[in-house]
């Protein structure tokens, strides 16, 4: 039963990450391939604040989320002049740059590759508690994001995605919207990172590689672009499905590769047949 709660918590974490990613990719049209960086930053920031400075974990996560937002904007600023594939490549490169940073400079417990020892508050102390707390946070994020996308800001983001040059002629700056939404997504992803660390209890850099960034792309690609529902559907469907695969009785060494091959096939399938995803609203032509 604990395992099911653990799975539920993971799903909630990835829902938050997917909602954030969909905001920048689906709604605003920014080809972001490096969201794992902010997930990792949030996880590390929250963990360190708690382990080394004794900050209450909830406070630590909140601080980590805000800090992630700032780091996200900082990493975006030099890339603002890039477009299309070049932007995508640069964000992809960030994954690797930060991986080495996490691995070489990242804090760790003596003698191991990673970090553990978070002092969890009661609301995150057991798998059950973790699930309900993370679920609550996920629901709040969903509500906040839904308000955003239905608002004039959401409309401005879609306009930015469609024709940034026309937006300029109307007196508005696509760059300003890019920065705002990237910061929001970075903060949300960092928040998810903090919750992720609490769930896993042990984090190391290998959790936050390009694979994690691709994972988010698969989730929203399958779930649906520019859709809050899609950001929920993707992680729910895929995490549940890959979990179900475990019960097929295949050797555990095969599970990783099978999942990877499956996700590869899904990416290809989505790109060929349905770039909109299952419930998405944006069929991107890029």
């Amino acid at each position, binding site marked *: 039963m604990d395992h099911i709660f653990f799975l539920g918590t993971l799903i909630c974490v990835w829902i938050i990450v997917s909602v954030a990613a969909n905001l920048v990719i689906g709604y605003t049209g920014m080809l972001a391939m490096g969201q794992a960086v902010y997930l990792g930053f949030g996880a590390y920031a929250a963990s360190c604040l708690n382990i080394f400075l004794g900050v209450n974990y909830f406070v630590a996560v909140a601080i980590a989320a805000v800090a992630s937002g700032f780091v996200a904007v900082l990493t975006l600023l030099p890339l603002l002049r890039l477009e299309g594939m070049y932007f995508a490549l640069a964000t992809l490169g960030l994954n690797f740059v930060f991986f080495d940073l996490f691995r070489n400079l990242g804090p760790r417990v003596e003698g191991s590759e990673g970090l553990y020892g978070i002092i969890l508050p009661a609301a995150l102390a057991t798998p059950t508690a973790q699930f309900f707390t993370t679920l609550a946070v996920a629901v709040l994020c969903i509500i*906040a994001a839904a308000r955003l996308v239905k*608002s004039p800001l959401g409309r401005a983001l879609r306009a930015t995605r469609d024709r940034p040059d026309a937006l300029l002629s109307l007196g508005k700056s696509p760059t300003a919207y890019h920065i705002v939404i990237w910061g*929001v997504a970075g903060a949300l992803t960092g928040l998810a990172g903090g919750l992720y660390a609490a769930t896993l209890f042990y984090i190391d850099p290998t959790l936050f590689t390009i694979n994690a960034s691709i994972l988010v792309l698969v989730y929203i690609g399958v779930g649906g672009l520019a859709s809050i529902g899609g950001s929920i559907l993707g992680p729910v469907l895929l995490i549940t499905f890959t979990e179900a695969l475990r019960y097929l009785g295949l050797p555990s060494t095969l599970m990783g590769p099978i999942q990877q091959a499956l996700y590869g096939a899904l990416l290809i399938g989505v790109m060929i047949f349905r770039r909109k995803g299952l419930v998405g609203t944006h069929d991107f032509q890029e």
Partner: protein
Amino acid sequence: MISRSSGLQIERLSKNFGGVHVFEDVSMRIPPGQVTACIGPNGAGKTTLINIVCGVLSATSGDVLLDGRSLLGLAPNKISRRGVCRTFQDVRIFPSLTAVENVLAAFPDQRGEKLRCLYRPGSQWGVQERSNRETALALLDAMSMRDLAERAAGQLPFGQQKLLALLRAVVTGAPILLLDEPAAGVELELIPRVTGLIRRLAKDEGRGTLLVEHNVDVVREVADFVVVLQGGSVIAAGPCDHVLRDERVIEEYLGRIYDA
């Protein structure tokens, strides 16, 4: 909601792209409350002129002044906020937004576009949005497009998209409008709506409009002044009737239009 302006002044503007002279020493004035048409053969540089005024391209020499302040070197969105708004020849509406959303996107100073207002109780962004929406729907109604309000703009026929783009520019409240062929591609029966709107904008709202247009009937219908741009310079400028009857203009330009 429309700010006032004393007009746009284009002074001795020249543009060449590395040796290719597009135009040279072009001057004209866009006074408030009047429609100034700019006509001339394709490639004469009319769109380039608009691009320079709006900050998309740089000028080789000369100046563009709005209420006495130079616009050169400013970013396009800054120029638009100062009060000069343009439409595009190839429309450029937001295809995935609905018709009404396209118009709504253009309203300036929306509180709902600011992140901090969205989550702050008491910011009243919802009230402002509802009011904007009413205005937008009324405008669509005036263009007989009310029933298309919730349709994705990308799926509308070209003529309707053109009207939508025009409404977008109108809604920014800019006192100076630069319209790049607003009637081209519009269905015949819709053209009176275009001309009617342009005239109302000038006469009722006091906006100054630069109209780049090939359709001489439209020009005759709405323009107070006409500037003829050809071969890189202004070959004629003056009140609409005079210019359209000028022999040189008829021979060089209008004659070809009627033959074609």
